[in-house]
């Protein structure tokens, strides 16, 4: 799953979907994950990047990461990989 191409995200974690006009605020860790997603990194790469940097175990990361992805999906901000 990847972030839709035209989604704009600012450093402060403000997301704007120009297609719908919807905007969202996310917390710093969410913004960091989206920043990595925008670079086109895989789930494994995102996981290792976060695990290296923060004190979190793989199981907890996975649980919260997939919750987060589902939320992005619900708000129509991500699309399936081609």
């Amino acid at each position, binding site marked *: 799953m990847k972030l839709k191409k*035209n989604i*704009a995200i600012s450093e402060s974690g403000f997301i*704007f979907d*120009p*297609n*719908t*006009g919807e905007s969202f605020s996310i917390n710093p860790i969410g913004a960091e994950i989206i920043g990595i997603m925008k670079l086109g990194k895989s789930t494994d790469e995102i996981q290792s990047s976060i695990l290296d940097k923060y004190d979190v175990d793989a199981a907890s990361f996975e649980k919260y990461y997939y919750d987060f992805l589902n939320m992005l999906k619900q708000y129509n901000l991500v699309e399936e990989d081609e």
Partner: protein
Amino acid sequence: MSKIKLTLAATGLNNTDNPGPGIPVIRSIRESGEFDMRVVGLAYETLEPGIYMHDLIDKVYQVPYPSEGSDNLIKRLEYINSIENIDVLIPNFDAELYTFIKSSSALQKMGIRTFLPTLQQLEERNKVNLPEFGKKYDINVPLSRPILGHSEILSLRDEFEFPVMVKGKFYDAYIAYNEEQIKMHFNKISAKWGLPIIIQEFVKGTEVNVVALGDGKGNTIGAVPMRKQYITDKGKAWGGITLGDENMLSLTRKIIKATNWKGGMELELIKTTKNSLYVIEINPRIPAWVYLAVGAGQNLPAALVKLALDYKVPHFKQYDIGKMFVRYSYDMIVGLKEFESLSTRGEL
């Protein structure tokens, strides 16, 4: 570059919570900086706020309601024109457009230019004719049917599923969940705007809008899509944001090309969850939120004036996406003398 000398007349000065487009149109043209202009406001009521906005409007004349017939309107405009020498007139109400379009040759004889759709274009996009419009131009439109009396309400169940939209021919739209509510809205709307009342299928989705300008030869001079972010209880935008939706823009270009649309236009669309676009209304004039388009880089009212004056107007190539407008209300203090002047002499 030298400025174009212009005396502009405009209606729609009712800058209320259900605003007419007159004030934003005038403001846009003034701020373009392209005109050395005098603005003549044409008002129907004495309390239209624009009348008292002296920084935007130089002189105001009261004009007769369109329902009083085009002869009365022309007579009044002849008088106003003998003093003001109007170059371009922009009518801003749906309800007056028929009269102004019908009078366009009389206006032309007076030297007053307009840039309006033809009567055929006006009629074709009428809410009552929307199903045929959709069929003719292969555009998604909701199922709709005009009704003239309560007796037709019972038969609606055969064609429509509840809820339905109940709409006036010019303004007003309410949602109805049963026949009783249709009757209630029917009475309310018909008392204000007359008949027919239009029953329209309720299409679920997000309402989005486009302001556009057609040159009358099938070309789109400019178009800006918007989503209302804050809607008043009258359904009017009190805040909105420009969108970057190519589907909305191509639908707009398709409609303008197919109809050879001349003048300003507002498309009211519903975007469904599957991203299909349904045209629910085509308003044959510039909408009151047009200043957002100006802020986003497309001064469509100024372009309309130049088209009316036969200037070559290049197409706008872009606009800022994610630009917002937030409307506000503001109290002006008005001297009784001003109110008196308009009430008794019909001029200010």
